[in-house]
């Protein structure tokens, strides 16, 4: 019998009803939490389940409940909300022609915020273009991020980079590459250096589920596992890679977290829209890494609610209402619900916070504009174009800079 080329399909296409019947969700609180230094061989079934802490009624339950105090929960909520409002404003700015490009992280805010809070400030972050919330969480001001997006006179990258390809050394946030996946093995190298130097900060990196098909994924897992590098390797499975569903990346066969097994390291699969679960899994992996247990692969199961980028039109390839039907809900609503269920928060307080942050975004935007836009000055300096190619300008670049009249 002859075979036929198997082409994996997404759960649904435009015009169809969103169908997530394939997703098997274990109940919150069900999964056991092993000790962080457990032998990876003993937890090979973990990737096939899912770490979930918040139940339907917004209660935090089970052994993975990190038992966070309301202070940190409120902080997380604040960062997530600010990220969402920031993203909305930037999208608008792009539509207005003030930004050449933008990428939202809507629906995935818990990933970056919870994971960032579970790490130490000296832990080094190797993100993708969809981890802007890491910067927000580490205290970078929206106005400064806006300036980068505007390539204006205050752009810390001096106009060299596309909007959102941030770099912020002050907060240990690595320069984002336009080439997907490259940061994964770099994070491993960074972590190896930490081991070498006897320091105990760790590295964390993120790739999209689509990008996990790149070769750098294999390098990262191989080197990480061979040298037991203190690193957390995260796959953000937001179901889509531009127009292709996670099935085209191999998600039809298996959870992405299961890739850990082959390398003999733990693989955790986490409800990525569950702030507490994302926090707890990261904490577990960080503890393991810091104690010499080596890398952990974490798959954060979430949904890319917005378009891939401002260059994309998702209505061409997926049902418009897919997100509304997404079984893991909205991470902000869920954390809010949890805080309310704890009687530590109220609808009124939430509205108040939303208003405050919306104003903060508006003010930041006004301030950012005052530092210029790419089309109207003041802009990033033109001569910056020749600088930082090398540490010092070699003769041929001095000559070219002169030819450019700069």
């Amino acid at each position, binding site marked *: 019998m002859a075979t036929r080329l198997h082409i994996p399909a997404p759960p649904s296409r435009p015009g169809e009803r969103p169908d997530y019947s394939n997703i098997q969700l274990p109940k919150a609180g069900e999964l056991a939490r092993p000790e962080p230094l457990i032998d990876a061989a003993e937890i090979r079934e973990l990737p096939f389940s899912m770490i979930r802490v918040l139940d339907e009624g917004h209660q935090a339950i089970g052994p993975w409940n990190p038992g966070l105090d309301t202070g940190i929960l409120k902080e997380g909520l604040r960062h997530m909300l600010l990220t969402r409002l920031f993203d909305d404003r930037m999208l608008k700015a792009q539509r207005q022609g003030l930004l050449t490009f933008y990428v939202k992280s809507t629906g995935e805010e818990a990933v970056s915020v919870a994971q960032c809070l579970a790490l130490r400030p000296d832990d080094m972050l190797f993100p993708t273009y969809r981890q802007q919330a890491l910067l927000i969480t580490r205290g970078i001001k929206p106005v400064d991020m806006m300036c980068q997006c505007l390539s204006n006179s205050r*752009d810390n990258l001096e106009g060299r*980079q*596309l909007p959102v390809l941030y770099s912020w050394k002050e907060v240990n946030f690595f320069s984002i590459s336009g080439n997907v996946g490259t940061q994964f093995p770099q994070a491993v190298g960074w972590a190896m250096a930490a081991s070498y130097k006897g320091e105990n900060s760790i590295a964390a990196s993120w790739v999209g589920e689509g990008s996990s098909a790149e*070769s*750098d994924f294999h390098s990262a897992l191989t080197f990480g596992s061979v040298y037991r590098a203190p690193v957390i390797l995260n796959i953000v499975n937001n179901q889509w890679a531009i127009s292709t569903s996670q099935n085209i990346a191999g998600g039809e066969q298996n959870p992405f977290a299961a890739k850990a097994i082959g390398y003999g390291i733990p693989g955790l699969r986490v409800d990525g829209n569950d702030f507490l679960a994302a926090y707890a899994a990261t904490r577990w992996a960080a503890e393991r890494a810091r104690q010499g247990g080596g890398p952990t692969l974490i798959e954060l199961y979430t949904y890319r609610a917005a378009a891939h980028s401002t260059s994309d039109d998702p209505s061409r390839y997926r049902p418009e209402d897919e997100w509304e039907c997404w079984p893991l809900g909205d991470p902000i609503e869920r954390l809010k619900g949890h805080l309310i269920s704890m009687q530590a928060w109220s609808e009124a307080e939430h509205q108040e916070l939303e208003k405050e942050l919306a104003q903060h975004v508006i003010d930041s935007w006004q301030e950012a504009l005052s530092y210029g836009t*790419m089309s109207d000055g003041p802009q990033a300096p033109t001569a910056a174009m020749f600088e930082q190619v090398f540490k010092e300008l070699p003769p*041929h670049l001095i000559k070219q800079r002169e030819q450019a009249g700069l």
Partner: protein
Amino acid sequence: MAQMNMIQALNSAMDVMLERDPNMLIFGEDVGYFGGVFRCTEGLQEKYGEQRVFDTPISEGGIVATAIGMGVNGLRPVVEIQFSDYIYPAFDQVVSELARLRYRSAGQYWAPVTIRTPCGGGIHGGQTHSQSPEAIFAHVSGIKTVMPSNPYDAKGLLISAIEDDDPVVFFEPKRLYNGPFDGDTDKVAGGWNRHEKGEVPTGYYTIPIGQAAIVQAGSALSILGYGTMVHVAVAAARRAGVDAEVIDVRSMMPLDIDTIAVSVKKTGRCVIVHEATRTCGYGAELSAQVQEECFWHLEAPIQRVCGWDTPYPHAQEWAYFPGQERVIAAMHEVLAVSG
């Protein structure tokens, strides 16, 4: 004949070939259901089915490697690398495998793979959506390298590339997809509909690989370029009022040095233009060959106008792009001296 922009012309080339050759198939990131991020494969999956036009994992190395395997097994794969800036993860498969297979197997095996990939800047794409790595590929023995500058050539060259039993890296200057661009950013961008090369036959035709085209005849000097820079050169010559002969190189490997040499021998002066960085760019090879072939006819040093030797910056795009002014300055330079 029909009015087409470059995207439609490329789409038409693939459509024609899918129709003619049941062993041709197309794959790459987002090229299937969606029709490609630049929409070059729009409608093709619907028309020919997902066995023949399909999406792949994000793995350029895997795309080229599987294309090689398919080529060896009798198929004729046309793959898209979403941006030529992302071709590097496939570099080993291109250089060590695709380019070398026929040679190392003494002709037993070969893979007639076409790699389509958008290149060049001018779209504010920053350093990872703007590169022009053609020189790197032209240096590799065993692959052909082409870049069209208009819809008519794009379709004819792509059909040639697909039919070619040698591997071809087919660069598409993305700034030209929707209309010619002459470097003037103040002008409202027009479409291909007002350009004669926007008239494209709907059926099958080819433009042979390895032939340059004389875009406009002239006697004062020769400008050699390809892709977007052809339009910049034409506009610069017009603006400067210089009677330039503009040659669209079209095929970097093999190179039609004869057409070029005839021109430079006639004009005695030569300006080479490209968007890629200068050092070891394809202009170096052009300069070396022109010098070798036309030394006794040269009345002034050959000038190169290229991208600066820096990554392609985002905000400083127009200071980086080798626009009309720089081409004009170079023309003046080669005209100023007499030998």
